[in-house]
């Protein structure tokens, strides 16, 4: 990738991350930390490439470890974040739920 273009990407992504978080209420800090933890689980695709291009046994072992860890990050991050967010409900939602039940 062109070096300068990569720097543009970094700058824009950094501002995006900052802006997205800056408006988050305290009550969502834990799910958000967990959610951003899930997002860097994209490291899985890099680990897949590393394993896919591995030739020697050592490279395969390292790549395999990377994919196991990356998949754990992605799947685990998703499951716990989803479980936490599922629990957030407003008083109104609860009443509606009771009525419909």
């Amino acid at each position, binding site marked *: 990738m062109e070096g300068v273009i990569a720097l543009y990407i970094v700058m824009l992504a950094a501002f995006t*991350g900052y802006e997205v978080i800056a408006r988050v209420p305290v009550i969502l800090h834990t799910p958000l930390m967990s959610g*951003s933890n899930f997002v*860097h689980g994209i490291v899985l695709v890099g680990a897949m*490439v590393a394993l896919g291009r591995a030739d020697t046994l050592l490279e395969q072992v390292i*790549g395999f470890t*990377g994919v196991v860890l990356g998949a754990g990050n992605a799947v685990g991050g998703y499951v716990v974040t989803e479980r*936490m967010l599922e*629990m957030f409900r407003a008083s109104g939602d609860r009443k509606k739920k009771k009525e419909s039940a």
Partner: protein
Amino acid sequence: MGGWLPDNVATLLIDGSYLLVAFLFIMGLKAMSSPVTARRGIVVAGAGMLIGTLMSFLYPGMGNFPLMLVAIAIGGGLAWWSGKRVAMTDMPQMIALYNGMGGGAAAAIAAGELLRMTAEQPGVATGHGPVVTALAAAGAFIGSVSFSGSLIAFGKLQNLIKRSFRFKGQQVMNLVIVAATLAIGASLVVAGHPAMQTVVLFFALALLLGVTMTLPIGGADMPVVISLYNAFTGLAVAFEGFVLENAAMIIAGIVVGSAGTLLTQLMAKAMNRSLGNVLFSGFGEGEVAATGAVAGALKPIEPADAGIMMAFAQKVLVVPGYGMAVAQAQHKVWELCQLLIDKGVMVRFAIHPVAGRMPGHMNVLLAEAGVPYDLIADLDEINAEFETADVALVIGANDVVNPVARTDKSSPIYGMPILNADKARNVLVIKRGQGAGFSGIENHLFYLDNTRMVYGDAQKVASALIHAIKAAG
């Protein structure tokens, strides 16, 4: 799988899908910034992850697919199983664990790249220039620290590691390790064709640093540390994204890195401490326990009397802390509050930003118990209301309500914003025993004239209070 498409078509599909991945991640995180849309947010981000993973099978020139599928099944399967089972109270350590795995994966990618360089013959052009090598090494360093550090954090929160290891010269030792790791890292970049031993030593030192950095940090500071390592892993992923020329990794990693840094700062600020102070000072380890004697006495009260006090109150503010999490008392506490609400008492939950072991830890527990989020207020929103409250019910919280933070300049928590529970007409404190909290600081709130102590496990006390209020009619 790979190879049945012409390379240029596969590359185009992958690049296009990564653009979509980045878009979905950012939309997902944005949706997570409001409780109304948060649930949708994680699903959107999850769709992005699925697309990115599936399309990555198309990379030209890849092999080892059976191994890859087995690895995904093992890692994903174990994480799915553990993530579904973990109790809400144990969330902080699970997040630390998954985060550490991400850091480890980034370090593994870097290890593969650096080892390939050792195999190259001197004089033959390397695949990477010095800039890319430096980025790979930086990612390896940060990722390894995040990996071993997160594992230690997990061990401490899970109570596998019971004490904090401290000794004189610890900071000096850490600095020496940092300097040595950076020096070896620099030599890797300069050498171009490093020796295998050098690469191994580099990783060993970086992993060691994560351990020695995290071991001395007390439980109360763990939220800040987990959040910091989350940002670290993001950065490591972004650096390896450069090495692999993978735009999705760069964008996701940098977004998480910058967001995580901001989140870490917000948390450190809420404790009125700098990040350096959290990492490098001995807070919460007993050295500060000698904070002068307190005037007054602890005045116990029976749950029955405490229950009646609340039943006839107009406004009750509940301040939950780590003690509620430990006792798994959130369901009973909400049952108690519902009883009060039915009696016409106005009940709100007051949450300190660093209550518990993670920012928003209490919110998650209360949400699990079914407390609607509009009954939950944070420090700025609710602090003025304590003056008009009849009862402040403090459940297993300590430092976050200690008035010493306002008055005693010699106290280590001086200047930390606290919940003004002491301003309420009556203060009820549910506490397991008489000892000081994890910080070892005596809590002056407990000795005030308007404070009564209810001793016992938070869950049992909440049950007793429910019983008392029901009995009072």
